[in-house]
């Protein structure tokens, strides 16, 4: 009995974290969609959703209600079991990947020794949701879109995985916590050590989550919505949730590996306020939140409608509340301070990464499918391989011959840059020829169905 209670208490904290994630994530995904629509609108010189709730803040809730209440349509002759199962796979896989993701040092469901590889492996299972969804819809366009999407995912997984390997060489461990610890120990975020690895992972992660400019399989002007064409209502909402959950996962992985996870920028700068143990830079989050609150309060009187004024004021109060929490945690124990501030910095970095995703979406034209495949197999993967070899050489230089860490990575970066330049020059030589390359042909023969 005692052993049973012990095992229950050991899993209580992880279960609590899991429950929080499952409850918060759908809401969060909905509001990320709202942010995306607002950002898209402002980048296109318009306002975005403004009607439903003040400044469109209730739009996600209205959308969710609509999707839940919509009629459930299943195509004739569709394989019902798999049609039902496919979105479930997508969402389950996206949520399971959260178990190894650390949101701050205190909030992680399971600190696996192979955490990073676990996230990559589980994300790769998301392909089934897409392929089975497309196939079970019993529609040519769905199947075509699904095959294209799956081929794209598989190709960019390899590139992304190789980019991650170059960081692993520097970190020495697959556990997410230890990778952040390595960045703390070495005093530098890994993005400054392997900028090419970051670039490759950035591109690969955009393609992995089917976002523009790699969203050919699901763009409206292309193949309708690809594998999601026949899905409507709540099933479509599940696919949507899975896509945004994937975006957050990929942003979380990039943050943990390249941007120091929950570390404050300039961690080495530990000057204190005189007389206290509070570090100077630790008040930056509080000041940022107070600045945001002041901004909200300044905007509040300028709103046209009374309810909008109140919502702005409420947003300001919320920011002040966060500022108070951040300030209070500074005087708590080490664990509390690190937990709260770590979570803050992690979320800020993830938010910045996702904002970049949105920025790219509205800035770049879409890649054609064969250009997409060629980019992965003939550019990113050779580049990632050269990057890995280069980082290996850099580590040998650093450990055997005691070079300065930064200096040891300069030849790596230069070699990779030279290789990338050569690859780009090579490509422009044969991009005018007929698209008969093996990378486009093998296995994609039925996928290109009727293409050139």
């Amino acid at each position, binding site marked *: 009995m005692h*052993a049973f209670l012990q095992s229950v208490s050991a*899993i209580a904290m992880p279960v609590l974290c899991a429950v929080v994630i499952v409850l918060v994530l759908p809401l969060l995904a909905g509001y990320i969609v709202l942010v995306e629509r607002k950002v898209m609108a402002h980048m296109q010189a318009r306002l975005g959703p403004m009607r439903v709730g003040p400044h469109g803040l209730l739009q996600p809730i209205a959308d969710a209600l609509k999707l839940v209440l919509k009629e459930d349509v299943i195509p004739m002759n569709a394989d019902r079991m798999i049609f039902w199962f496919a979105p479930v796979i997508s969402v389950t896989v996206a949520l399971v990947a959260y178990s190894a993701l650390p949101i701050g040092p205190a909030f992680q469901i399971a600190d696996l020794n*192979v955490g990073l590889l676990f996230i*990559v492996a589980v994300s*790769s299972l998301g*392909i089934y949701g897409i392929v089975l969804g497309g196939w079970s819809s019993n529609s040519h366009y769905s199947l075509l879109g699904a095959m294209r999407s799956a081929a794209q995912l598989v190709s960019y997984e390899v590139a992304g995985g190789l980019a991650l390997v170059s960081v692993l060489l520097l970190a020495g461990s697959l556990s997410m916590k230890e990778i952040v610890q390595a960045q703390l120990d070495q005093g530098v975020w890994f993005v400054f050590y392997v900028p090419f690895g970051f670039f490759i992972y950035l591109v690969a992660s955009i393609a992995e989550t089917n976002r523009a400019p790699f969203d050919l399989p699901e763009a409206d002007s292309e193949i309708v919505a690809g594998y999601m064409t026949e899905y409507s209502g709540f099933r479509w909402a599940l696919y949507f949730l899975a896509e945004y959950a994937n975006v957050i996962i990929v942003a979380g992985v990039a943050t943990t590996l390249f941007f120091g996870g929950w570390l404050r920028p300039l961690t080495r700068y530990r000057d204190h306020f005189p007389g206290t143990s509070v570090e100077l830079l630790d008040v930056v989050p509080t000041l940022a939140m107070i600045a945001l609150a002041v901004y909200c309060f300044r905007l509040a009187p300028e709103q046209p409608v009374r309810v909008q004024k109140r919502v702005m004021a409420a947003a300001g109060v919320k920011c002040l509340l966060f500022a108070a929490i951040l300030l209070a945690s500074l005087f708590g124990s080490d664990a509390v301070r690190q937990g709260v501030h770590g979570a803050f910095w992690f979320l800020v970095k993830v938010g910045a990464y996702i904002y970049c995703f949105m920025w790219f979406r509205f800035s770049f034209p879409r890649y054609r499918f064969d250009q997409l495949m060629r980019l992965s197999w003939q550019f990113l993967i050779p580049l990632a391989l050269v990057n890995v070899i280069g980082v290996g050489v850099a580590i040998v230089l650093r450990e055997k011959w005691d070079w300065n860490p930064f200096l040891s990575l300069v030849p790596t970066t230069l070699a990779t840059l030279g290789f990338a330049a050569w690859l780009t020059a090579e490509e422009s030589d044969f991009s005018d020829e007929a698209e008969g390359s093996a990378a486009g*042909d*093998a296995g994609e023969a039925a996928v290109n169905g009727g293409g050139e």
Partner: protein
Amino acid sequence: MVLANILFYFFALLAVGSSALMITRKNIVHAAVFLVTTLLATAGIFLQLEAEFLFVVQILVYAGGIMVLFVFVIMLVNLDIEMRAVRFNGQWKVAGALAFVLAMQVLTALWAGRKTFHLPAPPTALAAKNTEAVADALFSHFMLAFEVASILLLVAMIGAVVMGKRSAE
């Protein structure tokens, strides 16, 4: 821990059930989905055996790579006729009997020789971290096998590309 033991029986039941369902499905895609479930259950058993690197490799390579390949090919050769075709060939009774005899043979051999198994007491805690231990072994003792496996994969990749290409037109 008790939870680990319960998990083993859960995964074992899942694996056996899924595999039995897999070989009896009429629809090939259903069979593929059940094989994926079997592979994931096997990965769970690996995790329960504290082989965490193999757990991840099983999901990444087997369930996330090989089975995706299977599903792709199934969708490329999917025939409607397939659904109405005869599932089992004429020899299924003989095959069933053969498999049963095989299983009984192995069980009898195990049971008869159970006294000769000198099984050591299992170590309660493994020494090094699993991934590092596997990497050490892979790159030192098994280096030749590792290189040969790489060449095997390269040859298989070339072979698959050549077989999959449409004939030169």
